[in-house]
């Protein structure tokens, strides 16, 4: 009963990967086990916790609720793709560190991807909007207080980035 393998090309963080996976392979498992991108974490496998959230064509989606075969042809961004090109922490990553927005770090990748998309859409979130932005992600350690702060701080850092880019241009 050898299971049929599907040859697919996944574009993850700008890099293309050819892999053969069974149809049932969840995108989360393909990222972690087939590509070794273990930054994406699996917390519930039923779409509630948000730890596995990745960006698909820039939009946050649950990688545990997608099959790898469905992700072929789309641009996927994982936590490993959030650092700046020079290797420094990206704005959301930096904000989490500054604001103590993480403790055990297991849910963190899902927050980071979600917020990256969130502040792209809303560059100046209020605290209430920051809460809305992360309302679908579970964290058991932080009580969310510092994550909300980190959202606002990340937006500020991203604005600074844009300002300095504009200044340089």
């Amino acid at each position: 009963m050898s299971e049929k393998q599907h040859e697919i090309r996944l574009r993850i963080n700008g890099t293309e990967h050819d892999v053969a996976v069974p149809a049932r392979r969840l995108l989360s498992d393909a990222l972690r086990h087939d590509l070794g991108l273990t930054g994406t974490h699996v917390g519930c496998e039923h779409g509630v916790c948000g730890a596995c959230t990745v960006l698909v064509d820039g939009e946050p989606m649950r990688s545990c609720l997608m099959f790898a075969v469905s992700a072929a042809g789309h641009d996927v961004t994982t936590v490993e793709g959030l650092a700046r090109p020079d290797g420094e922490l990206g704005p959301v990553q930096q904000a989490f560190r500054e604001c103590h927005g993480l403790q055990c770090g297991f849910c963190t990748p899902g927050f980071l991807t979600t917020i990256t998309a969130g502040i792209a859409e809303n560059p100046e979130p209020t605290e209430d909007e920051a809460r809305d932005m992360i309302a679908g992600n579970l964290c058991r350690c932080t009580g969310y207080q510092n994550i909300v702060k980190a959202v606002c701080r990340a937006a500020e850092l991203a604005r600074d980035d844009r300002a300095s880019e504009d200044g340089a241009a």
Partner: protein
Amino acid sequence: MKPAPFDYVRPGTLEEALQALAGHPEAKILAGGQSLVPLLSMRLAAPAVLVDINDLPDLDHVRADADGVRIGALARHAEVLKDAEVARVQPLVPLALANVAHPTIRNRGTTVGSLVHADAAAEMPMVLRLLDGSVDVAGPGGRRTIPAAELYVGPLESSLHHDEIAVEAFFPALGAGSGVAFEEIARRHGDYAMCGVAAVVTVEGDRVVSAKAGYLSVSDIPAVVDLTEALDGSVDATALAAAAAAALEELDPETDIHATADYRAHLATVLTARVVTAAYDDARTRAGGSR
């Protein structure tokens, strides 16, 4: 929690998709997958074949015109929610969509998929019924339109045949003199509601000439109750109480781990009054008047 094996087909045309369904009585359709994939991972469902319709052309549309809103089978909740024309033509659609799960789920989940999943605890089936919308389905014999009133036949059961694909949903436009409102109460923000109510109220001057409310999580299938008679033209406290009583006659709330039947009935009562009032105010505002 990993799905059992299945064969996977990803047809490029509707015809191929229909053929795939016709050839596999145990096939299931994968669109957004936000309800289906957890069922597969928990092995509560194990279809032999999954027909992924995400490559089908011309199904991701969201169109609004004077008649109403047409939503293609591949339009994601998020696309519909942010469409300003949809909000203008039928404001109840975004009001309800904003309560569908969390934004990340709405980025992938499809509105049509939610409609045919036929969950009486979900927002959109109830809204479709309340608005007397419909779903267009394609099948081996061509296309047919299923009115919402005939779509929901049992718990998590729609009247779609196995070999049919829902291709488009239609939500009629908000009529002149009408207003809408939606409110639900969930244990946690984003959870399935313990009770939710939507209403469409039509006024002439300050008088209610028609009022209907839709209910979620308090019946087996999405429920709609005509409150016109009970309100008897008014939205004063007495009328609202009569409306809520009339609604409860039609509803059948059940006890589960989150809420008792009594509590759900109570919420239906409270929300009926709130939502009918809000829809009345909305109608008056749209008509340019004030209460």
